[in-house]
């Protein structure tokens, strides 16, 4: 017990700060990524052949852009984007500096996950609403997104977990977080207890998120 206390005495505040940093990075970039990714996912579905906003060119264009970004590993994207990040937020370091690459990394991923979820929605229901003279924009929100909610939640859970993984690399630009703590103290300064504790915290975090996602999705699903 005293060992635990001594460990917390020494590392507790570091852990706490790192946890807060991770939360900050994940939540801010997740919110922005959803704001970009969800509409993008909807656009991907609606511009498909046979859908209400059918547009072959736009659909191809979006697909290529998303595939290109998704081909680049985050650690490379992080450095590759430095000038762009500087241009957007004025800095390339700290939590602020890492949000931009995190969003660029996550938004296309979310767009793909949303596309898959929305495609699962029964075409017939959309058609029934078209037949009732309901506007496309209302159909998107009240039929497509609504019916896809359970699947969207599961998709976002996956995206969030991926995002937590990506934030581990944020330390490279001085944004801190749990990954950075494990790397700098656990690995470089060889403090295995810090490494193990961080890994345990990450495991609990991911487990908790997945369980939460599953519960919410099951609640929204009514069949």
């Amino acid at each position, binding site marked *: 017990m005293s060992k635990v206390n001594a460990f917390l005495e020494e590392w507790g505040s570091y852990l706490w700060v790192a946890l807060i940093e991770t939360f900050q990075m994940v939540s801010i970039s997740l919110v922005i990524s959803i704001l970009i990714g969800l509409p993008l996912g909807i656009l991907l579905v609606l511009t498909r052949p046979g859908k209400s906003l059918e547009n072959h060119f736009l659909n191809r264009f979006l697909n290529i852009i998303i595939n290109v970004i998704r081909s680049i590993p985050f650690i490379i994207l992080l450095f590759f984007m430095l000038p762009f990040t500087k241009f957007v937020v004025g800095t390339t370091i700290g939590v602020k500096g890492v949000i931009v690459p995190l969003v660029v990394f996550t938004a296309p991923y979310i767009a793909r996950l949303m596309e898959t979820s929305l495609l699962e929605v029964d075409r017939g229901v959309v058609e029934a609403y078209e*037949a009732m003279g309901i506007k496309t924009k209302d159909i998107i929100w009240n039929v497509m997104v609504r019916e896809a909610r359970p699947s969207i939640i599961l998709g976002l859970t996956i995206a969030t977990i991926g995002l937590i993984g990506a934030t581990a690399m944020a330390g490279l630009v001085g944004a801190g977080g749990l990954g950075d703590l494990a790397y700098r103290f656990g690995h470089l300064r060889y403090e295995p207890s810090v490494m193990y504790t961080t890994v345990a915290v990450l495991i609990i975090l991911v487990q908790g998120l997945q369980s939460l996602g599953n519960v919410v999705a099951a609640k929204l699903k009514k069949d």
Partner: protein
Amino acid sequence: MIKIDHLSKTFKTKNGSVEALKDVSLEVKKGGIFGVIGYSGAGKSTLIRNVNLLEKPTSGTVSIDGTDITSLSAGELLKARRKIGMIFQGFNLLKTATVYDNVAIPLKLTGVPKKDIKERVNRFLSIVGLSDKADTYPAQLSGGQKQRVAIARALSHEPEVLLSDEGTSALDPDTTDAILDLLLRINKELGITILLITHEMHVIQRVCDSVAVMENGEVVEKGKTIDVFTSPKHGTTKKFVNGIFNHQLSDEMIESLKETGKIYSLKFTGDSSEEPALAIITKRFDIFPNILSGNITQLKEDPFGSLLVHFKGADNEIKEAINYLQEKGIQTEEVMTYEQSKRIS
């Protein structure tokens, strides 16, 4: 009420174009129930989807209550569609919404005032007999109940026209009848004109005043149900009519019976079913009729009977007897083997 004029629809596919509808013209009278029957692939689903422009016709027009809906702007089309209810084979309800919300959400989205929504949802749920299920989700309902919700949803917009795209095809026979009775009731009580498509003769028999038979994208026969089915002219129509009586003779049986006479199928409707016609011809002509099979059914309100009879006797006597039956308003048709009928047609 619904006037379909020279409607054609061609689908472009990778392997060339497919003509799903070829110059189809139909008129559905106000307050009537019109059925379109055909086998799958006949183009009936394309036809009904062209009526509310879920599918855009290649040429021709559709007018509803005098308005040509093929010439409407996008905004006008939205409004016009609100007056055309539609139900589907797959019900197409929101899985994530309660029965109440399934009816209420479209009302909200079409701008019905909040205070009216509750009243309307409750009124139409009670019309379809589901008032007690308002808070359940579709997954907990049976197929028939789901279709009732879909009907309530369609009716809640107070349409003048209801389209049914195989609305009973996914239901078992008892449920089909219950839904058909509901359609009859809303047609009578609310005066809603109904256009339905189906592949089941039973549906036409039970509810339709008028019918069109489709094959290969064309209407091959149309008119009042009783007229079309009591004197079918086209092969497909005949097949549907024979389907309801379902007396099939094997070719071997026909061959052996033919050695001693002729086989006729006789169809009786309305008045002609009242006279003992067979008894009369036995007395008048030198023939011996032998009933092979018989059946009576109904076309909406009219009785419709059919007998399969083997007439034993001389050819000229049989011919005269048949003439007599025809004079009495009985439809007659000689039954032949499959091979023979192929040779003739």
